[in-house]
């Protein structure tokens, strides 16, 4: 772990915080507005790789535990890590790791010249869906099921309402990661 790794880890933790500061998009009937913050783990995994991406999200969880208002809407503190949605916060670590792992396997070191733009964006999108949505929601639903005592299946159907919005975010994450990598390639680690 050299200094550049540490700086990149801190940078992507900061990007995730900054995404939470962006204006929220309220949706009728839902108590939780859609935020851009869950773009953070997808971007971290897809751009700096599994280990550093997961560490950047772990750093964010540490900041939440320290009581800093780093989550969307200026919330934070130990209350958030004990609440019903804490599985989604811890899940970001897993999400960044799996997204990064898949990107590293499929895209490899730097941009592969043999592939066109859209196949590559497509692969990153699939990685973001599996890591940033599927794995994340498994963590979130399991935690919710344990905390409330309702079955895992019921909890899963409850959180599934947020998947459409996250699919849009995965598409954005794939496009951003691809365009940034074209301008500034980083080895996935």
């Amino acid at each position, binding site marked *: 772990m050299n200094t550049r790794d540490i700086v990149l880890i801190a940078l992507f933790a*900061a990007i995730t*915080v*900054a995404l939470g500061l962006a204006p929220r998009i309220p949706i009728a009937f839902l108590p939780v507005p859609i935020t851009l913050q869950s773009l953070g783990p997808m971007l971290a995994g897809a751009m700096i790789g599994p280990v550093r991406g997961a560490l950047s999200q772990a750093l964010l969880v540490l900041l939440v535990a320290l009581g800093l208002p780093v989550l969307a809407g200026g919330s934070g503190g130990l209350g958030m890590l004990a609440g019903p949605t804490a599985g989604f916060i811890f899940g970001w670590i897993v999400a960044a790791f799996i997204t990064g792992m898949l990107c590293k396997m499929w895209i490899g070191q730097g941009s592969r010249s043999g592939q066109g733009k859209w196949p590559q964006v497509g692969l990153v999108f699939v990685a973001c869906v599996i890591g940033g949505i599927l794995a994340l929601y498994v963590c979130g639903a399991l935690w919710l099921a344990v905390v409330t005592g309702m079955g895992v299946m019921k909890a899963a159907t409850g959180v599934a309402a947020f998947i459409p919005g996250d699919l849009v975010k995965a598409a954005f994450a794939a496009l951003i990661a691809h365009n940034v990598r074209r301008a500034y390639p980083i080895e996935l680690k």
Partner: protein
Amino acid sequence: MNGSLNIPGHTLLHRLGAGWKLGALCLFGLILFATNHWIPLAIALAISLCLLASTGLSVAQARKQLTGPLFIVAFLMLATGLLVEPMQGIAVGLRLMALITAGYAVTLTTQVSALLEVIERLFRPLDRIGLVNSAQIALSVSLVFRFIPVLIDQARVIREAQAARGLDRNILALLVPLIVHVLRSADDIACAIDARAYPPPAPPRKRQVP
């Protein structure tokens, strides 16, 4: 991002050591999950509400922090009550509210530096066997603080430049140049840190003199 959530004061919770508070919070959580009866859970919620009130926070601040979680808990209470069993729903609601308010009370009354110290102490055994490096953790935490205002400033600059060219708000057009820019500066920062030889090398171990 306007500083940390904690508020200054000299109440009982403020004076208690951060390590004790964290330990008590963990114990509190375990006890809450051990029971499913509403009477002890209601008592627990009353205790944590008293603790929260004793911190002397303003109503406006409490409302800002607790409205969101309250909505989610109310929704879960309803869902669990309808899907599983009414009593289970009440138990879930009481337990979650007690946990959230107790955690919030600890956060309000503990300074970030004190919590960071506890975390460093927890990491120390791992540091000794070489799994983590607490100096690196401290460095990355302070780097995040440094990066957030930079990101916000840079986002404003890019958005203004794009507005001047008639480009409307567009997430892609904002985030791509923003991230490329900060990645470039990340390399400079890493070089600067290396040039200052940070983190400082560990002090040499005492050798036994024969």
